[in-house]
């Protein structure tokens, strides 16, 4: 009898080890609401995009644009009419069917006068959206826009149903491979597999997003296994320890985050281009990358992602040259330097980078008064109030060079030439022509030294070594779990 029991035990132990089917992801920030079509915070998309909510198109892990709820689309010869053929047999999580009227509703809602969509500019060129039949939608633009299918792939352009939109902020209903399960505020959000999904079924049964803002707690949560992966680990200084630990894998990729020393172009003395150029030459980018990010990050010389094919390396225009900076300051009438404010939001790239920049600026005679702000204060004072001299922030939206054409944007750069360049970009559909215009735009802002261009934020993630399929790069704000599985 004893022998038998023992055999049974051995058999049980030797049987095929079943792979785990649930995952817990760590995130530093919690979304303020769960409405990707009405809330600006990146955390909303980082939970819902591609998992719960889907758009007509989607941005894939390599940044390319892929069909999603639209299985195919056609563009008219003049570039003004897009015809989208929709996927058949798709249902929302509440059981209602997905059809052309949902697309019309979603896009009309996003571009409406009273819409709170955070990226309304994506829809600005739409003249009309009409359902030709249940499965075909025609979108007419007021001007050709070669980027339109990409715009529809943003998290802000996901398709929602009129039946469930009223409660979207707390109970998002989409068409994705996962269904929203529960939001324990201040702690976690869970999603479960959608058995009726129209596409390839996902490997995971359940996923939990756990919100841990403190870097020390994040480190402990990874080490104890409370969290299986931290797609963007908040403390780069701890990555070396994960790298030498065989239980973990460090995933270093690129993000769309241009980290810049934003400069208030309307506030004297920064309205003088020589002063801005002096700032640029006073900054030693490599010291900032090493000191603030422990070596993770790519130097940039303009507001553009280095992994984009259209990127031009303009770092030489603003090379580290303190003597040049002092000379430029003297020329602008600030031989004795001046004092300005440096307001820093909470991320460590800003807080640590700020201290390094303050020391570098002091070298050329510019004194800074540092104040550390919480996000809400930063948004209020700097982003909306424009009450600042300098600040550091990472702009993580993809392809966002267009913000330089907005007069009222918080760095208050106003250039008719640049606006003309952006206008010509919107008219161009030929890829080679678009690349040329984008490069012209990059050079224009680099030569105007609008902001201090520091580095491209790296995506430094940590994951259990047995997890497969996490995104290495962040071409858009997302934690796409559709391809994620555990190794058996």
């Amino acid at each position, binding site marked *: 009898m004893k022998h038998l029991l023992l055999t049974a035990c051995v058999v049980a132990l030797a049987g095929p080890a079943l792979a785990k089917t649930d995952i817990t992801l760590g995130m530093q920030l919690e979304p303020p609401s769960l409405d990707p079509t009405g809330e600006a915070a990146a955390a909303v998309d980082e939970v819902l995009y591609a998992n719960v909510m889907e758009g007509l198109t989607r941005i894939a892990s390599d940044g390319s644009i892929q069909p999603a709820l639209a299985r195919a689309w056609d563009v008219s010869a003049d570039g003004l009419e897009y015809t989208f053929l929709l996927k058949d047999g798709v249902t929302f999580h509440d059981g209602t069917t997905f059809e052309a009227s949902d697309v019309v509703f979603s896009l009309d809602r996003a571009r409406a006068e009273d819409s709170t969509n955070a990226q309304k500019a994506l829809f600005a060129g739409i003249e009309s959206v009409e359902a030709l039949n249940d499965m075909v939608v025609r979108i007419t633009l007021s001007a050709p826009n070669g980027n339109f299918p990409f715009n529809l792939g943003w998290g802000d352009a996901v398709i929602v149903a009129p039946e469930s939109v009223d409660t979207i902020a707390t109970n998002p209903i989409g068409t994705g491979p996962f269904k929203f399960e529960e939001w324990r505020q201040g702690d976690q959000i869970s999603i479960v597999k959608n058995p009726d999904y129209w596409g390839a079924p996902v490997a995971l049964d359940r996923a939990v997003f756990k919100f841990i803002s403190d*870097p*020390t707690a994040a*480190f402990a949560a990874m080490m104890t296994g409370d969290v299986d992966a931290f797609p963007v680990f908040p*403390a780069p*200084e*701890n990555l*070396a*320890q994960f790298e030498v630990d065989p239980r973990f894998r460090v995933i270093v990729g690129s993000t769309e985050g241009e980290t810049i020393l934003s400069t208030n172009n309307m506030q004297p003395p920064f309205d003088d281009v020589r002063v801005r150029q002096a700032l640029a030459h006073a900054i030693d980018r490599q*010291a900032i990358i*090493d*000191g603030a990010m422990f070596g993770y990050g790519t130097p940039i010389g303009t507001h553009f992602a280095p992994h984009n094919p259209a990127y031009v390396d303009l770092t030489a225009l603003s090379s580290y040259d303190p003597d040049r900076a002092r000379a430029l300051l003297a020329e602008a009438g600030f031989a004795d330097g001046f004092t300005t404010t440096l307001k820093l939001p909470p991320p460590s790239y800003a807080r*640590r980078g*700020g*201290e*390094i920049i*303050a*020391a570098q600026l002091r070298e050329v005679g510019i004194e800074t008064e*540092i*104040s*550390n702000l919480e996000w809400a204060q930063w948004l209020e004072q700097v982003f909306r109030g424009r009450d600042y001299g300098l600040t550091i922030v990472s702009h993580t939206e993809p392809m966002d060079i267009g913000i330089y054409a907005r007069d009222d944007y918080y760095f208050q750069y106003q250039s008719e030439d640049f606006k003309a360049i952006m206008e010509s970009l919107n008219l161009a559909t030929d890829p080679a022509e678009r690349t040329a215009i984008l490069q012209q735009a990059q050079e224009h802002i680099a030569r105007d030294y609008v902001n201090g261009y520091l580095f491209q934020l790296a995506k430094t993630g940590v994951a259990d070594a047995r997890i497969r399929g996490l995104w290495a790069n962040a071409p858009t704000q997302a934690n796409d779990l559709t391809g994620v599985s555990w190794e058996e």
Partner: protein
Amino acid sequence: MRVPFALALGGIVSLVFVAMAGLSYLWTPYDAEALSIANRLKPPSAEHWFGTDHFGRDIFSMIMVGARTSIAVAVASVGIGMGLGVPLGLWAAARRGSWLDEVIMRGNDLVFAFPSLLIAIMIAALAGPSVMNAILAIGIFNIPVFARLTRGGALSLWQREFVMAARVAGKGAARISAEHILPNLANLLIVQGTIQFSVGILVEAALSYVGIGAQPPTPSWGRMLAEAQTMVSFAPHMALFPGLAIVLTVLGLNLMGDGLRDLLDPRGRERTA
């Protein structure tokens, strides 16, 4: 009269820190605010006695300059507490039982009811974080401590014969408080002042730790600890030395306070002897 051991030890430790702060005005091994990214996270060595931090700053120099911030905050906040608390306490005692006494003491209770950290966060939210605001917050918290102590001590002194004699001689309440009551309270206040001094250093460290005390680049022990937090596992010296500085200073001041009480308060000495 023998100097108590606790007083001697506490006095020496406290003096060392005051001396370090004073010396930092004239000399530090390195510029405490100068970054040297290439030299970051160096363990203690002959060149850098306490090692370097994540920006390559010399930790020994930072602790010297940080002592300045700590001492300045402690002195100024005890100053505010004594400067306002003692007169209030004397006043309340002189008019004991009156509505004025009630107003002052209930006002004290009100301030006591708020933790100083909460007051500091409120001030920082309204006026922005700075050393001045930390001083203000800790100082406000010190007022009721001294007011209460002064009133208690003064009440019993008002019953003494020499005070009666002064009253018979026609001296007013204000003059009696200043000439007869206050000098007899000096011992009590010095001892309490020393204790509040150490409390001030602790609270300043706590405020800087949460980011609402001294702002960068001014070195501060509390912020050094906060910055060291994520690096403890591979650069323990970053947390060890500022931590030790706080512990030793607070310990030194408390020992000194105890020693002073033993020395200055004969009744207390009889009890402990």
